């Protein structure tokens, strides 16, 4: 269960959000919505534990009732998956090498599962092309393949649909649906209408 209390963050003399509260539990899809520059990415980075200059608390509890079940930062990193504007795909590695590394940062994985994930992302043909030869959408798919290999409870996705073609968008919709059906939580931003997803809770920033 993710709990955000009285989050407040300012950047360059502009208050991005103030007294921001949010509680979400298993099965929630939260869409953070806002205009360009309203602070969505900043919020997601704070959730993921990357940004530090904010006030307020962000916590993840195993159970909603016990206050003591709050997990430690390292445990939280194992439970969460952050995918930002930069896709963390190294240009001189192949998709498989990138995927293996990115996955193993939080979850041990064997190669066959990674290969299957790439195939599901329609990257079967490009398995051993260096990533700087890939198109923008294909690079994004490499980054997204991690959703299939990592066992995270909380997904934090910053504009994950960028550069994807319509087949890719559909696929990602399915993945998200699957994740929440399994009791996971998805927090995402996007400027697209999320018509393909059921039960999205929109939070305006």
């Amino acid at each position, binding site marked *: 269960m993710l709990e955000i209390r009285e989050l407040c963050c300012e950047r360059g003399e502009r208050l991005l959000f103030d007294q921001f509260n949010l509680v979400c539990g298993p099965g929630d899809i939260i869409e953070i919505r806002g205009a360009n520059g309203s602070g969505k990415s900043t919020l997601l980075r704070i959730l993921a534990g*990357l940004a530090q200059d904010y006030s307020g608390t962000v916590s993840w509890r195993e159970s909603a009732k016990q206050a003591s079940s709050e997990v430690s930062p390292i445990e939280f*990193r194992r439970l*969460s998956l952050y995918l930002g504007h*930069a896709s*963390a795909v*190294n240009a001189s590695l192949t998709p498989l*090498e990138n995927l293996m590394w990115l996955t*193993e940062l*939080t*979850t041990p994985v064997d190669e066959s599962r990674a290969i299957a994930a790439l195939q599901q992302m329609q990257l079967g043909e490009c398995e051993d092309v260096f990533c700087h030869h890939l198109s923008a959408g294909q690079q994004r798919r490499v980054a997204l393949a991690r959703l299939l290999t990592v066992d995270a409870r909380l997904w934090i996705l910053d504009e994950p649909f960028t550069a994807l073609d319509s087949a890719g968008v559909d696929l990602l919709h399915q993945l998200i649906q699957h994740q929440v059906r399994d009791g996971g939580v998805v927090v995402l931003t996007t400027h697209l209408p999320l018509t393909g997803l059921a039960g999205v809770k929109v939070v305006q920033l």
Partner: protein
Amino acid sequence: MAGKTIIKAVLRREFLLSVRNASASLNGVWFFVLVCGLFAIGIGPDKEQLGGLAPGLIWVTALLAVMLSVDALFRHDYADGSLEQLLLAAHSLYFLVLARLMAQALLIAVPLALVSPLLALMLGMKAAGLPVLILSLLLGVPTLVMIGAIGAALTVGFERGGLLLALLVLPLYVPVLIFAAAAVVSAADGYTYAGQLMILAAQFVLAVALSPLAVVAGLRLNYYH
């Protein structure tokens, strides 16, 4: 244990990348050889004079080669977002960074040490100093990598970080330079050098233990907001 998987993954990627990228470690060696050659040209080929200078020249060159290699250590990962993912790994960053630094230290030190006897002989150093030259490089270069990594972490966000890195890091390189050059000179002149090597080793051990702390802090602060 999960920690081991992560460390192994980090190491595997490190080696893969260093193989892929125009054999970066080999380039360090070429740099080493070329700059020593430039000295021979710039100073004039008076062998006797060069022989006396050789330990100092070789060591200053090695130091620059290390600085150049280290500059790229985190820069690319920062640009493509891999660094943020590393910071979000489910393991103590101290050990992850330590693993990377050790891998880099190995990749940089060994080729330099291997090629150094050739250079030393070209510059006319006395043969008695050769084994100690190799040893001093194997002990000293890793220390330089560790110290340099601190600077690299602090300057990773800057467009033209290379020279800033030099300013931050080169003053800190002085102790290594002094003891390493002194060890080689002593050995070449037939004197005892164990003391200097011990001090180099002590510096190495200290650097291994402490520099990851500073590197982690340095990397984190680039993601301060």
